[in-house]
């Protein structure tokens, strides 16, 4: 404590504007232009505060608008009945087709992407030794993640819908989504594994464990909260996609019927995109309801992801 004491008054003297201002007035030479500098400091602080407000106000408005308006239109029938009518005429009914379609698309895309991304990420962190090949993979994953989902969507249409002849279908939509989700799981798995201390690996190997057993029983367990966070984030990325699904899943007014090929499926973002531009109130209400479901589920995923990371991280 006594060691700190000399520094505290000194810092207070520099930090507090009043003391220096007083000394200037009393004739002792103070720092030059101190008033101007203080003013500039106040102005810049004000601008920084203004910029965070400018960013937070739209966010608050978006959440207010869609959560409050969404709550007004939430009803059991709207969630459990299918959409009636198409974009051209009157649209009404509910959005159970979009809800079930979204669950199928995201579920299937996650089921396809997790093994690829997770095991690929294990290679990057545990086996690659940062060789040239892994540098290439990392670069390619970054290019994929940085690209417009539109480009991936159009490519998905050409590959799955046309070339493979699957038509607009759940499988075409999910595979396109999984191309978009892959880089996130891939990279977050690698990062989570790299955060596991090397002592754990050395200890396991010193005791005679194989590398495989070391990964499966130790490092993966330690990295699991980070990996789960990455998976949850990629799910929220899949949930918010619209354009790629327009080209590969199209849309359907009927609930998912169990067919993965040749049958278009509905999804929530389509409802927002198309029905918000229609004139009727019933169509608008469906768009509000979909926005409400999208925002609340994505916020929930984000919160859960953070809780998982904070609560269960052992490293």
């Amino acid at each position, binding site marked *: 404590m006594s060691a700190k004491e000399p520094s505290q008054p000194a*810092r207070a003297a520099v930090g507090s504007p009043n003391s220096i201002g007083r000394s200037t007035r009393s004739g002792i030479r103070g720092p030059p232009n101190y008033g101007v500098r203080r003013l500039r400091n106040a102005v810049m602080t004000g601008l920084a505060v203004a910029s965070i407000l400018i960013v937070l106000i739209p966010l608050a408005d978006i959440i207010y608008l869609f959560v409050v308006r969404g709550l007004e239109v939430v009803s059991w029938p709207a969630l459990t009945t299918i959409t009636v009518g198409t974009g051209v005429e009157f649209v009404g009914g509910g959005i159970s087709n979009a809800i079930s379609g979204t669950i199928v698309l995201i579920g299937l895309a996650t089921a396809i992407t997790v093994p690829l991304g997770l095991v690929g990420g294990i290679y990057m962190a545990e086996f690659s030794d940062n060789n040239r090949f892994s540098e290439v993979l990392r670069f390619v994953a970054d290019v*994929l993640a*940085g690209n417009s989902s539109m480009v991936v969507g159009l490519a998905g249409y050409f590959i799955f819908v046309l070339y493979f002849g699957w038509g607009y279908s759940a499988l075409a939509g999910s595979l396109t989504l999984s191309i978009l989700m892959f880089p996130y799981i891939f*990279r977050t798995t690698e990062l989570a594994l790299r955060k596991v201390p090397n002592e754990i690996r050395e200890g396991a190997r010193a005791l005679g464990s194989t590398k495989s057993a070391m990964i499966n029983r130790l490092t993966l367990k330690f990295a699991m909260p980070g990996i789960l966070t990455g998976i949850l984030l990629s799910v929220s990325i899949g949930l918010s996609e619209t354009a790629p699904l327009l080209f590969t899943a199209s849309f359907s007014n009927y609930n998912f019927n169990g067919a993965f090929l040749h049958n278009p499926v509905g999804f929530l973002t389509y409802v927002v*995109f198309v029905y918000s531009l229609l004139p009727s109130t019933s169509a608008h209400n469906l768009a509000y309801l979909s926005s409400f479901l*999208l925002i609340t589920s994505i916020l929930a995923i984000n919160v859960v992801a953070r809780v998982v990371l904070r609560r269960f991280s052992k490293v």
Partner: protein
Amino acid sequence: MKAGNSRRRLVDRVYDFVSALLGSSALLFLFMILAVLAVFSLPSLVVNGLNFFTTVIWNPGISTTLTAVRGFPAMSGASYGMLVFFSGTLISSGLALLIGAPLSIGVAIFLSMIAPKRLSASLSFFVELLAGIPSIVFGFWGLLVLAPLLVNVVEPVMAQYLGFIPGFGGPVYGYGLIASGLVLALMIVPIVSAISRDAMSQTPIELKEAAMALGMTNWEVTRKVVLPYAKTAIVGSLVLGLGRALGETMAVAMVSQSALNILPMTVYYPINTLSAFMAVTFDSALTDPSGMEISSLAELALVLFIITTTVNIVARLLVRRGFISSAEHLVQV
């Protein structure tokens, strides 16, 4: 014992191989995307040639007669020029950067230099939530709130008082360039500010303390010590945000009023971007009997791919951390 050892080594080798194979799906995805886009854009590349890059008019010529041009079926009255979408993409993203850059840096300065630690942590969480909001919802918000506000309040005032500046006068539309730029700006703030804030808070405490001890104000410490220290990462994050804005589709598709065949003459004009145009034109492109319009869309996709990849490589060179900033950011907390 020896046999056991070699079997164990084999297990490891198989694991190594299989995991490398699954990781290679990244290569497969990229290869598939580029290959199909190249194949499907071939008719457009051959028939439209350089006109694709230099003309303004996009007209599939649906009601004209079907002919053949250099061996590919084409409509006799068709014209495919990408200039409207190309310029709209660059202008709207540029505007987004112009508005978003000072905002994001302001947010980053507030979070790392001004706000108390508790407040900073919770505000960071909220700003990052902004990154998670689907772009379609941003678009819906722009449609319901932002564009009406612009057309009724902001743009008339701008036209009246800034009208003497070329490009700021004339009739206002609400849905168009300004609306797109603002929505895009809002969408790039979370990434840019998160990376910038991280870089700024990595400034060695000794440097900041030394500057304070010399009597610098908080802003002077920021301006002369923290910002120079974080400069590269901030520039990189801005380029990264630019890449995001260039490829953004749905929000722009909803507030840009989908301009066709006109270039923006004032900041109030309707615009269109490469990706937004692809999203709204896809259905009608499928009805083109010559198949040339869908091929031209594939060429647009290639152009967009080249632009965003170039921008992203630049950003990657600047920010070592890579692109998946929001996700990486969270994992590294």
